[in-house]
């Protein structure tokens, strides 16, 4: 079979895996409610009592919701499947390990994108205006895919305990939220704070969201988009390459 036909066939099977993930892991009332409530409450706990405008709050809230939801389930799907003894069956099907991981990423991407509509609709209801809808839409889609690709990076260690992977993910995710210009704008951070912020992919999405909603960003939009793209490529390559090594060790 020519390589392009093979890639198309494997992509179709990734979609089948994504649909399976959505049905089994994401389409649960508690997962959806927790996906919205957790970042909202975390955000409110740091913003209530401060005199912040809706234009400032919504980009931050959107960044947090997108980041937390797109990375919430994807890290634990593989260890979950290994623990439930469904992974061996899946691996013996005519699918590559990359196909399985891309399927998991696509499910996470769809979940992140769907839940991110909640703060966007809330913002529109509260009167925000999106100055650059196209750039904003591209940024939301790109960021959802970027964060979804980060999820499987957390599950590279071949443990079959979802709790261990969740702990690894939390150790990374929480600090990222605090260094990404969500609670304090990048312009107001000291030089060392800005340097730290630049290592977080969430920084670049928040910056584009601020540009689109507040009309000003810290970095040029093209730079934000390119860096988000670079992070996406990095997470994808790391997740796909390293899962190839570690997934057989889960069995």
């Amino acid at each position, binding site marked *: 079979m020519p390589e392009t036909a093979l890639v198309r066939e494997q992509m179709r099977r990734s979609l089948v895996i994504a649909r*399976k993930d959505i*049905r089994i892991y994401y389409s649960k009332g508690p997962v959806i409610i927790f996906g919205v409530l957790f970042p909202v409450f975390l955000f409110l706990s740091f913003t209530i009592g401060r005199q912040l405008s809706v234009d400032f709050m919504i980009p931050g809230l959107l960044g947090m919701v997108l980041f937390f939801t797109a990375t919430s389930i994807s890290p634990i799907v593989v260890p979950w499947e290994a623990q439930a003894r*469904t992974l*061996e069956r899946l691996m*013996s*099907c005519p699918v*590559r390990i990359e196909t399985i991981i891309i399927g998991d990423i696509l499910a996470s991407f769809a979940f992140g994108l769907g839940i991110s509509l909640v703060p966007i609709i809330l913002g529109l209801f509260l009167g925000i205006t999106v100055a650059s809808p196209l750039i904003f839409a591209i940024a939301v889609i790109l960021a959802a895919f970027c964060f979804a690709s980060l999820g499987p990076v957390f599950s590279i260690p071949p443990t079959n305990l979802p709790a261990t992977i969740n702990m690894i993910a939390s150790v990374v995710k929480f600090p990222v939220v605090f260094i990404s210009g969500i609670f304090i704008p990048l312009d107001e951070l000291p030089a060392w704070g800005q340097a730290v912020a630049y290592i977080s992919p969430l920084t670049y999405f928040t910056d584009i969201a601020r540009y689109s909603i507040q009309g000003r960003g810290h970095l040029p939009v093209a730079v934000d988009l390119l860096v988000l793209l670079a992070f996406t490529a990095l997470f994808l390559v790391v997740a796909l390459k390293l899962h190839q090594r570690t997934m057989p060790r889960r*069995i």
Partner: protein
Amino acid sequence: MNNDVAIQVANLSKYYGQLLAVDHISFTVGRGELFGFLGPNGAGKTTTVRMLTGVIIADKGSASILEYKAGSLKAKQVTGVVPEMANAYADLSGWDNLMLMAELYGIPASVARERGISLMQEMGLYPRKNSLVKTYSKGMKQRLILCMALVSDPEVLFLDEPTSGLDVQSTRLIKDLLQSLNAKGKTIFLTTHDMDEANQLCDRVAIINKGKIVAIDAPEKLRMATSGMHSVEVSFDNVVSPEVLANIPGVNAVKKLGDKYRLYTANPGELVVSLANYSSSHGLKVISLNILVPSLEDAFVALTEKETEHA
């Protein structure tokens, strides 16, 4: 590669750390053959199946399924697998699990539906096809996993302990299905602990112990080749001490089984004559006398114990 060969394995090895779990094994399985793979726990059976089905990667050697490299997408496409202790997705219905597998094998939806209905009917699952798998019994789950392995109509089927711990009805359904699939020309690679099952179903069996193949042959030939394992079961109308029976010429060992004795010998015909002479000279009456040929289990124990002693 010979067209008559379905599975070819050459010097396949797998290490887990320092442990050599599978030690340079080689064998072939013919097309349409029902091949049994027997061995004690930890012998390397499941590791071998996992290498052949592409779930884990071999450290040395090579294997092919039909003409394709084991583990390649093409090899997986022509293979159906029932892994050891595998589960279907508990939060999906039996039917949805089956259709998921069909989609992962790229089977057109109409063909998948037709096959799915037929398989579920054959396995007695059709009335519960829309129930979630978490409501299925263990036997139903295992029958479903077999349906999932067959929905792609594979040429080669790998089954790792498919009837382990199942009720009689499920075991019989699965055995009947395997026989009917084999009669249709499917190649079946069956890992099992159940010697009766291997004896009834398999054209040939391989016995693996400590990662090495210790014997490959037809079950009947393996049984008959087990020297010293023939036995005569005898009971008398009066008490006879086992020590006395052990002194009869040709008796290698004596085992008391209730009111009977099993006498192990290399030559059962001669032993029957000796027993008749012994009973008449000691005024004993023989109540029952049976010549027993070694079972596959006897052959298995003899071969694996011999290997262990050598080690």
